[in-house]
């Protein structure tokens, strides 16, 4: 399974989190793309597949993502 996230289309995942919450296998995680630096609040969070090998191809995430930011190819 090849999981691609279009970060631009996704926007701020922390406002949504549907893929994080709804994936039955809990494949995804999120982190601040530019890291955490002293004095700066971490923004710019991205979604990333962490346990990609668990993906069953059920396409729940694709169907929940109203931003059409996730594509999954078998």
């Amino acid at each position, binding site marked *: 399974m090849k999981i691609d996230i279009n970060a631009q289309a996704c926007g701020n995942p922390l406002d949504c989190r549907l893929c*994080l919450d709804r994936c039955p296998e809990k494949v995804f*995680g999120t982190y601040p793309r530019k890291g955490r630096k002293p004095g700066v609040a971490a923004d710019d969070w991205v979604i990333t597949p962490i346990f990609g090998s668990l993906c069953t191809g059920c396409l729940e995430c694709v169907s929940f993502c109203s931003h059409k930011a996730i594509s999954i190819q078998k």
Partner: protein
Amino acid sequence: MCEFCTEHGEGKKWYMVMKNYSQELYAQKGRAEFLEHFMANFEEGNAKALAKLDAVRKRSLVLRFIRLMSNRKEKATHFGQVVPIEDVEQIIDMQSSIVRIPCVCRSLLTGRQTRYCFGLGIDPSGILGKYPDYAHSFEVLDKQEAKKILRSFDEKGLVHSVWTFKTPYIGGLCNCDQDCLAYRIQVKEKLLPTMFRAEYVAAVDWDLCSGCKKCISQCQFGAILYSNTHQKSNINVMQCYGCGVCRSACATGAISLKSRNDFANLPW
């Protein structure tokens, strides 16, 4: 006794030894810098490292090699042990400072900023206060407040564990469910060892068990089985982590913890 008790326990459980929480120990081996790096890079570092590990999950030889190397590293730097609530309360009594801090595991895996974790001994605002994401969420607790919160976590079925920052220094106390990264890596995905089971294991007294099954949903480890024949619950000791949270779900007080040492062949 777990490996750490033998190495760092001075004849006691290693997390009952005052020295392992001491400022003196904290001041050595660049622990403050380690803790800062750990907290500042937690989500990104782990997301990337685990994605790589996940990619070789099916290549058993590669995984075995990585497991061996990482086990050594993790045990020296950041390793945990499950601790039941009574021992947690004793640990709280040993502390000079207790600060509620954000849970970085849940941040990574759920995108939520929650405060299920406690910093022990250290003043995290000294080194972590410069990170705005963390600074606003620190809360200094007194022992009574901390114990009250920990009891309420226990009733919710959250498993307590202590964590080292360059072993044997213990700097963190976590309260985990299945959104904890250590749980994911060790228990669910069986990728790498991250923590020891508790020094205990649960047992059900059938004279007291009413067969209500409430303990079964309290257990994060799927360690409780129900016997239809007897209409009683049973602990699968090979699965049990000895966290003891099942006890708070049992109205009849049928579950108690026994010493893991008293059993042969149990995993740690």
